């Protein structure tokens, strides 16, 4: 039997590293459904979970997989599912239920080319806006974008920590290339891994309010069987969890749901900045596209262009303030991503009229070559 934290150096692909990260983070329940290129996450979880006393179940579709992890989460366990585009679409209604019921869970999307069945075995980053807006209604979501198998391990742990801390679903927006790429992954010692678990309520169980925020804006979360007799509903509800069909309750609930993310941006937003301090031209990228973007920055610098990279590790919530500040001092932005313009629009929105913003995109199936970034750079600036 392997321990929960399989300390050591491994040569594994991103999907397996993601599963190992989940186990190391303390995940004990996985509701799965096979889909290329995310299947290896489910396969590895089905093998690993029993070693740590956890449970894998293969559900009948992605709707059921997503719903099962919410039921699992209310028993007090950390839960996860993994999918790709078509499954991600099916999960969207339930993602809204997770948000409104403040149920922590982690959803992995190993993106492939779309729309529809698209390119099952080839990568893309075209579900980025779906991650933000795919479920109906207004909400904030947390989405992380790993760029290597090592980050699939590390950021899966971060995803669980953020989801437990803020009682919200967290997306890992990976892609086929990172998911299927094998690289060295270093799994540290158990003591070196920081894990966070949801705050449990203490004290009186009678008339407990499971949606009454604590000091950080997040309500302590009881588990099934503890005697708190919670009622959890997808209807607009008050702090007690009871449905109230009123404008005021809707406003209070929305403020609570949005506030816990919007008031903690500094804690949630993570970026990596490469040669950005003196940069005139900022490449914005994330996930696998950031790998070619580092090369593009180096190539530009060799040619005397002062380029720098802003790599988004957290894509949602978006680092508005950072882009707005950069827009005041740089010549402009180029967003590198495997889609025809999604995050580039966010960059454009934040840059406003202060600095121009361009897209180095790709319709899907391959990475954006650094040469394409350089040629857009030369043409634009």
């Amino acid at each position, binding site marked *: 039997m392997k321990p929960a934290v399989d300390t050591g150096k491994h040569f594994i692909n991103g999907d397996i590293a993601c599963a190992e990260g989940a186990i190391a983070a303390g995940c004990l329940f996985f509701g799965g459904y096979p889909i290329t290129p995310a299947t290896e996450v489910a396969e590895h979880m089905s093998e690993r979970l029993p070693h740590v006393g956890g449970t894998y179940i293969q559900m009948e579709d992605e709707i059921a997989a997503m719903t*099962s992890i919410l039921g699992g989460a209310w028993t007090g366990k950390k839960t996860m599912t993994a999918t790709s585009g078509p499954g991600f679409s099916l999960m969207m209604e339930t993602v809204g239920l997770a948000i409104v019921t403040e149920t922590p869970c982690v959803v992995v999307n190993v993106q492939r080319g779309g729309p529809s069945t698209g390119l099952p075995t080839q990568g893309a980053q075209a579900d980025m806006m779906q991650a933000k807006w795919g479920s109906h209604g207004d909400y904030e979501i947390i989405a992380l974008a790993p760029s290597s198998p090592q980050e699939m391990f590390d950021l899966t742990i971060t995803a669980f920590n953020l989801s437990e801390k803020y009682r919200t679903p967290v997306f890992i927006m990976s892609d086929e290339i990172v998911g299927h790429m094998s690289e060295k992954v270093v799994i540290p010692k158990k003591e070196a891994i920081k894990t966070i678990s949801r705050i449990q309520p203490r004290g009186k169980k009678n008339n407990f309010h499971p949606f009454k925020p604590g000091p950080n804006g997040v309500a302590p979360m009881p588990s099934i069987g503890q005697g708190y007799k919670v009622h959890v509903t997808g209807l607009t509800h008050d702090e007690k969890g009871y449905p109230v069909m009123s404008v005021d309750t809707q406003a209070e609930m929305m403020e609570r749901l949005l506030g816990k993310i919007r008031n903690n941006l500094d804690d949630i937003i993570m970026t990596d900045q490469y040669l950005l301090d003196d940069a005139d031209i900022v490449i914005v990228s994330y996930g696998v596209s950031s790998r070619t973007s580092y090369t593009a920055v180096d190539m530009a610098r060799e040619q005397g262009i002062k380029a720098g990279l802003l790599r988004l590790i957290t894509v949602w919530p978006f680092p508005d303030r950072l882009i707005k500040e950069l827009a005041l001092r740089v010549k402009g932005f180029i967003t590198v991503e495997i889609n025809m313009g999604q995050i580039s629009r966010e960059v454009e929105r934040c840059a406003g009229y202060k600095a121009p913003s361009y897209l180095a995109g790709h319709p899907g199936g391959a990475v954006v070559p650094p040469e394409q970034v350089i040629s857009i750079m030369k043409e634009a600036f």
Partner: protein
Amino acid sequence: MGSPAVKKEVPVPHPLEDLVRMERIPHIWCSGCGTGSVFTACLTAMKNTGINYDDFAMVSGIGCSGRGAGYINIDSFHTTHGRAIPFATGIKMARPETNVIVFSGDGDLFAIGGNHFIHAARRNMDITVICVNNFIYGMTGGQAAATTPHEAKSSTSMGGNPESPFNLPLLAYAAGATYVARWTMLHSRDLADSIEEAINHKGFSFVEALSPCPINYGRRNKQKPLDTLREYHANTIIKNNADPGELGIDFKQKVILGKFVDIEKPSHDEQYHRLYHETSTKS
């Protein structure tokens, strides 16, 4: 004759009050609706099992009977339309000691949620599914459902339903349910006893409870509330162990009630534990 003596009313607590979120009463169910009677039978059954209420969880989907989870005073979950069963599955597999009851309607469980029902039955997932079958989508105003009788009128089939309804006990049996029963809300004791048996049954248990919707089904089909109940009384027969194939609902014939399936078979959580947890601790 003098003025009538003013009787001072002493409030007597309802015997199921400890299981009801009294602050949420009155409920939303219409006069003449049968959901409350099925709900009462369910609470009575839970009480009669003697199981600690904290070891129960109720999950509902969307619709009139889907509001059940909002009135019961235990850990209770009102989920999305059709998804009560996968939510319940997640609870059961992550915490097998929980007695999970799905309380929902025919539209929720058998149209939008039909796929989840057959797979939970196939797995012999140890949950109890109670279906309040009122033959119609009540909450949205009376549209045809997967249970609406052939030629019955609904707001989307004013010329008569061209489709045929599911035989729910047959569907449950064919999919692998190991406990299947059908009652009407009028047979309140049989229904409560059956639900109690279903809760105590290890494996997937299904209880169908026929229940009137006078507002959205009866009105269009020239059935007054009491007519429906009279039909439940006069046009039903109890036939335990009846062939599930004979259980189609046609009130012109006799509608068969009773317990049709009660099979012992290891449940999904038992199988998983045996194959994965016991072996992985050995190796």
